Structures are given as structure tokens and as C-alpha cells.
């Protein structure tokens, strides 16, 4: 492994995962519904997600530097059934659809930038192939790329936000700042705002490659959530001053509309470049971090062992290639551009919320079970933040869509996915792992699973001890 990642690279990865082109649509949708008061929903969700980040940081402090930390925390606290269902649903399935969606948005922006002579799928597939190759080269290269992209995006979006707030406001837009101040209208929009802040926990799997991870893992999660909150708040104020609410709500590319109103032609091309970077950055983070999580899950026996195979650069190439393959397949069929994918993304965000709730429960369980374990990070005011986080996130789950019919469809689909995952989990745990489905593994067992030799010695039981020890020494 080469150079260790610093705080900047860690924050970049978090921001790269949080900023997605679909975020602009969520932001515009919420802002056009209630106006500037959408800021309240943004701040509430930012705080709720900081609570989730705090819980993840505490779990990371109990079990530091694990390859697929997120899955391993759950296995240690809540057992294999909960781990497989929440991790597979919340991260793997949701991201299998999020990655091609970002690819499709990249393709649309490229078409607007270059022209419609080339089919959109060519752009998205090319981007995915490039990112798969980058990720196959190992984490440091992708993190370096991420840092450059994230720095440009943050500076640009901060500029667009600040310019929208302090600019002359001569875009000819005269409109009410507040469309609704009713809490009954604002609070349900927290579910819309949730999409603006997901993904900071993807920093955790990078902990083993980080400088001073005890400090930098929690700090970078809070920093990227805070930075994103500032950007989103500034953008909402900018929307109010430069973009009519009704046009904002109906636009397919609200970010381009805002940038054109703010800076004219320059703004258009600038925001197109930002949108391209956002799409590239998000898909890069998804491929890189999901592959790390899958690798970690395979290590602890929750997925087939083939997922933990690594190439000479230390990249889990099987998962990277599979993720890339799925993404390219969906991009090539054009499915990712349809409204069905948007619906699936909303459904996936429901699983993501469930995952955050499970993190909070996990912290409560492990605080009780392992009270004396030294933690380099402890959530303050325990268990207040966990309880508030659970209640707040549950509220967002029940208001996943403001349209009742869509909400019921999402709940129904989620129930089907949940049931399918639960059946897979029960079969896998009973037949393959041969352990009780709800029994937690314990921290010691989870930590020992981290060692590659753990599997070697168990899969070579028939070899004599002397031969096994010799082979172990050779491998180590």
C-alpha cells in the first residue's frame, strides 16, 4: 500500500459520494414546494445524518480498520440476518440502481454539452469503463482523482451559492420567499432532503488507508455533511432570488436553469462541467466503496468468498467488475433514464434510512454489551442522539413521498425486496454459515475474521498441523 490518505482525501470521498446530479433535482423539488423554508428541512436532515454519522463513528471506534466495517459492525451487534438484509438492501441493491442513474444523467449532460449526434448510452458506458479501470488500479489512485474533482465541485457550488445570495438579483425574478410556513408541509420534505446527505459513511471503509483514522474518520464525516449543508442552504436562497419556483419544480435540469439565470452562458457551461464531475465522482465512489463493503461481507462469510479476491493493486476486482458490469448493462439498455429508476432510487433510499436506524440500535446494543471498551470516539449525550436519530429517520421513512399513492407503491416494493432478502439471508445463514440467524457473532470473532488466514486454516482442516503452519508462515 502506498501513501496514506489525509483528511482532505477523506472529506473528498465523502463529498464525492454525497454530491450527485440527482441531488439537484431533490433540492429543486423541495425548494419549489415550500420556498426558502425548505432550509429548515435541510438543516434537520443534516443534523439527523450527523447523528447517524456519530453512531457509525462510534462503531468504527469499537472495531477500527475493518475492511467492510459497516457490515462487520452489524454482524457483531445484531447478527447475520439483520446484517445481510440491511447491508444488501441499503447499500448493494440501492447502489446498483444509483450508479447507472448517475451514468444516465452524465450522458444527458454530455448530450447538452456536445450535441445529440452520439447516442447517450455511449457516454455513460464509456464513463463507467473508465472508472472501473481507475478503481482496478487501487484505492489511492481513485482517491486522488476524487480529491481533485471534489475540490472543484465544492468551490464551484459554494461560488454558485454565494453568488446567488450576494448577487444583484437582477434576473427579473420577483417572488415570495415563503410559499408555505406550515410545519405540516415542511417536515415531510425531510424525506426529500435525505437524498442530499447520504453516503458520508462510505469514508469508514477507507479508515485502514488513512492517516490518523481515529481522528480523521469521524471528523471527515461531520465535515463533509456540514459543508454540504452550507452549500444546499446557499443554493436554496439563490433559487429564490434567481429562479421562479414553478419553473424550478418543473425543470429536468434545475441546476442548469439556475446557473443560466445567475451567470448566463458562462454559468451554463460551468454548471454542466460541475454536473459531469458530480456524476463521475458519485459513480466512482459507488464502485470503489461498494466493492470494499462486498469484500468485507465476503470476508465474514455473508457473501460468496470469491468477492474478496484482490488483484496486485489490492483492489477487490471481482466486485468492481461485477458492479461495472451491472452498471454498463443497465446503462446500455437505457433503463436508467426511465422514471422506473427514479422510483427505485426512492425505494432504495427507504432501505438506506433503515440502515441508519440499525446503526443507532447497534450502538445502543454494544454500549450495553461492551460498556468498558475504550472508544476513541463516543457519541455524546448517549442515548439521546440515537433515540432522536431513530425517531427522526422513522418519520422520514413514513413520509418517503408526499404523494400517498407513490408512498404505498414504495412500501409495497420495499416489503417485497425485504422479504426476498430475508429469505436469501435465512437460507444462506442456515445452509452455508450454519449458525442461528439472529445470534450476534461477537466482536472477537468478527475481528479474527479480518485475518485472511482465518479462512485458510478452516478450509484446510485435513492437513497436518506442521504442514499448515509452514504454509501459514510462507503466506504471512
Amino acid at each position, binding site marked *: 500500500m502506498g501513501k496514506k490518505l489525509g483528511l482532505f482525501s477523506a472529506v473528498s470521498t465523502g463529498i464525492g459520494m454525497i454530491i450527485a446530479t440527482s441531488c439537484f433535482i431533490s433540492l429543486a423539488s423541495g425548494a419549489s414546494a415550500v420556498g426558502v423554508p425548505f432550509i429548515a428541512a435541510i438543516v434537520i436532515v443534516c443534523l439527523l445524518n450527523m447523528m447517524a454519522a456519530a453512531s457509525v463513528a462510534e462503531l468504527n471506534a*469499537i*472495531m*477500527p*480498520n475493518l475492511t467492510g466495517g459497516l457490515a462487520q459492525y452489524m454482524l457483531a451487534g445484531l447478527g447475520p440476518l439483520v446484517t445481510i438484509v440491511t447491508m444488501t438492501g441499503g447499500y448493494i441493491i440501492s447502489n446498483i440502481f444509483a450508479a447507472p442513474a448517475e451514468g444516465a444523467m452524465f450522458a444527458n449532460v454530455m448530450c447538452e454539452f456536445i450535441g445529440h449526434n452520439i447516442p447517450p448510452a455511449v457516454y455513460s458506458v464509456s464513463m463507467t469503463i473508465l472508472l472501473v479501470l481507475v478503481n482496478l488500479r487501487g484505492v489511492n489512485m481513485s482517491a486522488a482523482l476524487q480529491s481533485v474533482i471534489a475540490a472543484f465541485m465544492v468551490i464551484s457550488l459554494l461560488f454558485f451559492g454565494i453568488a446567488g445570495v450576494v448577487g444583484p438579483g437582477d434576473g427579473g425574478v420577483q417572488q415570495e420567499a415563503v410559499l408555505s410556513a406550515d410545519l405540516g408541509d415542511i417536515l415531510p420534505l425531510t424525506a426529500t432532503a435525505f437524498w442530499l446527505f447520504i453516503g458520508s459513511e462510505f469514508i469508514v471503509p477507507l479508515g485502514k488507508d488513512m492517516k490518523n483514522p*481515529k481522528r480523521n474518520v469521524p471528523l471527515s464525516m461531520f465535515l463533509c455533511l456540514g459543508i454540504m449543508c452550507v452549500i444546499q442552504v446557499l443554493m436554496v436562497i439563490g433559487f429564490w432570488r434567481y429562479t421562479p419556483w414553478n419553473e424550478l419544480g418543473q425543470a429536468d435540469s434545475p441546476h442548469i436553469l439556475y446557473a443560466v439565470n445567475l451567470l448566463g452562458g458562462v454559468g451554463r457551461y460551468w454548471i454542466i462541467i460541475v454536473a459531469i464531475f458530480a456524476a463521475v465522482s458519485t459513480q466512482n465512489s459507488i464502485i470503489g466503496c461498494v466493492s470494499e463493503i462486498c469484500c468485507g461481507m465476503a470476508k465474514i462469510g455473508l457473501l460468496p468468498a470469491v468477492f474478496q479476491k484482490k488483484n496486485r493493486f489490492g483492489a477487490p476486482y471481482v466486485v468492481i467488475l461485477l458492479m461495472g458490469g451491472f452498471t454498463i448493462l443497465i446503462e446500455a439498455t437505457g433503463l436508467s433514464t426511465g422514471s422506473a429508476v427514479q422510483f427505485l432510487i426512492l425505494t432504495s433510499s427507504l432501505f438506506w434510512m433503515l440502515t441508519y436506524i440499525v446503526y443507532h440500535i447497534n450502538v445502543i446494543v454494544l454500549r450495553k454489551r461492551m460498556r468498558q*471498551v*475504550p*472508544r*476513541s470516539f463516543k457519541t455524546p449525550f448517549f442515548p439521546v442522539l440515537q433515540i432522536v436519530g431513530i425517531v427522526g429517520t422513522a418519520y422520514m421513512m413514513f413520509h418517503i413521498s408526499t404523494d400517498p399513492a407513490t408512498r404505498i407503491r414504495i412500501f409495497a416494493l420495499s416489503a417485497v425486496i425485504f422479504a426476498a432478502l430475508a429469505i436469501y439471508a435465512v437460507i444462506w445463514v442456515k445452509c452455508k454459515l450454519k449458525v442461528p440467524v439472529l445470534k450476534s457473532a461477537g*466482536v*472477537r470473532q468478527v*475481528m*479474527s475474521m*479480518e*485475518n485472511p*488466514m*482465518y479462512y*485458510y*486454516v*478452516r478450509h484446510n482442516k485435513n492437513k497436518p498441523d506442521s504442514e499448515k503452519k509452514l504454509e501459514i508462515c510462507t503466506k504471512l
Partner: protein
Amino acid sequence: MEFSRLEIITAEEKLPGLVECLSKPGFMQRLHKIGVSGITVSKVLGCGVQMGTSEYEPKENEIMQLLPKCLVMIVCESRMIDELLEVIKQELYTGHIGDGKIFISDVTNIVRIRTGEEGSAALNKSAVD
């Protein structure tokens, strides 16, 4: 004044991190203020309840396998012990077998042989220099 001795047994590779953590400017100043003026490190061999078994092995060793460890000794005023313990525990904790143990015992007196100073005077820079 009461003194305590901390004997920390841990893996050799953790020693640089521990020394770096104890050497942080703010922390070192506080240590100096209450009389911690140094540490003593020895390379030792030993094993704990796992008899030297590696974490990944399914069966525990039947015969003790002594592994290279380091023994770090720190003497400080007893009132500092809780803060010092917390910092050391957090630094050495990884969750894996082999993080080590900390033994705490009372020290009745300290004597600096060169000057004959005793107690906290023997821990701090000598007044006669």
C-alpha cells in the same frame, strides 16, 4: 504524595504509536506538571490467556508459545492515573487479541540516586543542578 506505577505489556509494533501519543506537546506538558518525566521500555517475551495462539487459529496452543512484546513502565502521581490510562487504552486499542494489558500498582517512594532526592523531586528535574 502518592505515586503509581503503570506496567504496560503490548505488541512491539505498537510502541512507536504509544510513545508518539505520550509525546504530544499538550499532553507531555500536563504529564511533566504532575511529575511524569519519562518512561522505561523493555523488550520481553510472553503470552497471555491464549497461550500465544494467533487470533485466526481455531484451536488454542497446548504449550505456551512466547511472543515478542514490549514492557513499558511509567511512574506518575496517582491523581494522574485515570487520564493517563484513558489515553493509553485508546491508543493501544484495536479490538484484536494482543492489544495487551496494563498493570497498576502503588509506589511507596522514589529515590534519585545521583542527588538523593526523593518523592516528586526525584521525578522532576533536579533542584540541585
